[in-house]
């Protein structure tokens, strides 16, 4: 569970009590643990107290530090607005919020409530995102705000993603502080992750600008459920992207995700056209999205629309949130998915969330020699030289060195 303010009794509770620095980092560590994090693998996290800039203070719903006019919306008559951030296009009346819960109409002006409102901060291996072909062996300063524009029944971070910002403890972390902290922890990247970065697009854009000015790159872990214009503007500032493609059927997206497949596929094509380094994760849920036909259709679509060099990660599901009735994905199911995708001609198909499985390593598609060995969330060996296989000189796509 993600750490929240623990309120024993309403009578004794002080409204808006600030979370002290130690408690905040406990929260951050707890969130990492919930994600099967580096913390569980013994990853060191630098001095907690130093991680939070001085002046971090209590947040309230009215705290103007977090409230900025949203970038992507259209004004309608009668103080209504239409959100243009994601394909949902929420029509939001005065005093109401969009589906994401972090954007509010106040008198006909739409506001984001989560700019600089960080509810999880953690130093993660980049392999945990997972990004396997992007700066392997490095760490990412990883942050999130509350909120999400879908509602996956298997969400492992539902207690932040499915909450409104005032319901989870958070700290003020303006873009400059994010960049400074990333440098302080020697992270070459800032990662926007854990919940759904689409919903904090304005903050992500400002943090990416601050990071780039300080020599720190930005990566995003996203569901890709975003309108094209917003994606071009926001993710145009990203250096790499990981998209969770949750299924290859509209019915699954409708029933399990509360979203749509087509806009996500469109986003992947847009990212391809933008030239962004992109990797895809497909979480395999027993009985729901694990048929041969779906794996084959997915692989064929990727090959036809994105090419054979896009890394595809089939990852293991663990029962969470509203899907506790399903078992853990059997490893043979993941291996079957990989076999099908390999047979369709994809070059980099991985199996994830299965520690020690050989398919978490990178192999040369030409000579089949191992090029990157991974143990847990760390890259223990990276043999790639000059973006090529050192054995047969086959180019290996990715950004391998800073």
């Amino acid at each position, binding site marked *: 569970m993600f750490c*929240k303010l623990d*309120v024993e009794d309403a009578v004794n509770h002080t*409204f808006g009590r600030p979370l002290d620095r130690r408690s905040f980092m406990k929260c951050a560590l707890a969130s990492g643990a919930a994600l099967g994090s580096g913390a569980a693998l013994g990853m060191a996290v630098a001095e907690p107290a130093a991680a939070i800039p001085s002046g971090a203070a209590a947040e309230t719903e009215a705290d103007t530090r977090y409230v900025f006019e949203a970038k992507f919306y259209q004004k309608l008559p009668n103080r209504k607005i239409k959100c243009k951030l994601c394909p949902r296009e929420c*029509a939001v009346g005065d005093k109401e919020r969009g589906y994401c819960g972090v954007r509010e109409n106040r008198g006909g002006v739409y506001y984001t409530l989560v700019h600089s409102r960080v509810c999880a901060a953690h130093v993660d291996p980049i392999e945990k995102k997972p990004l396997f072909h992007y700066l392997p062996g490095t760490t990412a300063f990883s942050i999130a705000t509350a909120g999400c524009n879908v509602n996956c029944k298997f969400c492992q971070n539902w207690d932040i993603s499915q909450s409104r910002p005032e319901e989870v403890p958070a700290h003020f972390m303006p873009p400059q502080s994010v960049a400074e902290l990333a440098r302080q922890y020697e992270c070459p990247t800032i990662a926007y992750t854990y919940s759904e970065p689409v919903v904090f697009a304005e903050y992500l854009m400002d943090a990416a600008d601050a990071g780039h000015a300080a020599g720190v790159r930005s990566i995003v872990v996203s569901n890709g459920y975003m309108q094209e214009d917003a994606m071009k503007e926001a993710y145009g500032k990203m250096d790499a992207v990981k998209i969770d493609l949750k299924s290859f059927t509209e019915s699954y997206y409708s029933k399990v995700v509360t979203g749509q497949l087509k806009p996500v596929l469109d986003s992947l094509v847009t990212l391809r056209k933008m030239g962004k380094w992109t990797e895809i994760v497909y979480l395999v849920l027993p009985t729901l999205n694990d048929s041969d036909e779906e794996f084959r259709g997915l692989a064929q679509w990727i090959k036809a629309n994105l090419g054979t060099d896009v890394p595809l990660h089939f990852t293991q599901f663990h029962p969470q949130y509203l899907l506790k009735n399903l078992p853990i994905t059997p490893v043979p199911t993941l291996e079957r998915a990989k076999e099908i995708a390999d047979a369709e001609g994809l070059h980099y198909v991985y199996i994830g969330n299965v520690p020690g499985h050989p398919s978490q390593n990178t192999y040369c598609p030409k000579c089949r020699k191992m090029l990157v060995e991974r143990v847990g969330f760390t890259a223990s060996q990276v043999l790639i030289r000059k973006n090529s296989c050192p054995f047969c000189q086959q180019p290996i796509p990715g950004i391998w060195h800073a």
Partner: protein
Amino acid sequence: MQALFGRDRTVEAWRHLVQPGDKVSLKVNTLGGRGISTNVQLVAAICERLQEAGVKASDILVWDRDSDELERAGFHLAVGGDRVQCYGTDRAGYEDELAAWGSVGSCLSKILTRRTNVLINLPVLKDHDGAGVTIALKNMYGVIHNPNKYHPDGCNPYVADLNMLPEIRSKMRLIICDATTAMYEGGPGYKPEHSWNANSLLVSTDPVALDHTGWKIIERKRAEKGWKTLAAEERAPRYIATAADAEHRLGTNDPTKISLIEV
């Protein structure tokens, strides 16, 4: 209350509902600010009747989602002491564990789960741009942490599913809808130009019957003002029928089975 419960004296009617020792909470609706929220005067009168029926003042709690919204609607926050209590879930928090039924999976207010064994629902009567109308059933959106997730598709079946949660269904014993001021268009935010003084209270133990009746009142006012029906605007409150269906059975929306007593 005497007519509803068939009692000769007011206090007997309330004693039919509560007894000494009960933890009674009054879920008001304060989203609309002073323009269209549950009236403080109505709540004060109910608190008096509850005390006459033997409930201690400190066992009565007036609440909504947010303390600031309560204050904006005219309520004075009261925490601790022998007084009637008044504060929002922002002070008590939500349960960490999910309560789930059908399409709904939500964390419930600790006020409902830990401070309430009798829930009195005190909604207002108003139009809602997504749901059609918001009255008794939808007022329960104010007891969960993620109401924003349940507005698609006219809030159907979410409103009905939410009211199936045992903590809500088993504790809600009475609904008194404050229709002194009501709104036929432009909700849920307060729009004075679309409000009227209905000068009514709708009282029922059946939230579906009450919502159905309230919906029809709003439709009559819409017709009087020259507005299309909610169905014509493709926002009829379908969740009311869902709440009455065989899967939910939260009450009846059949006019022939609703005894409408005007006092």
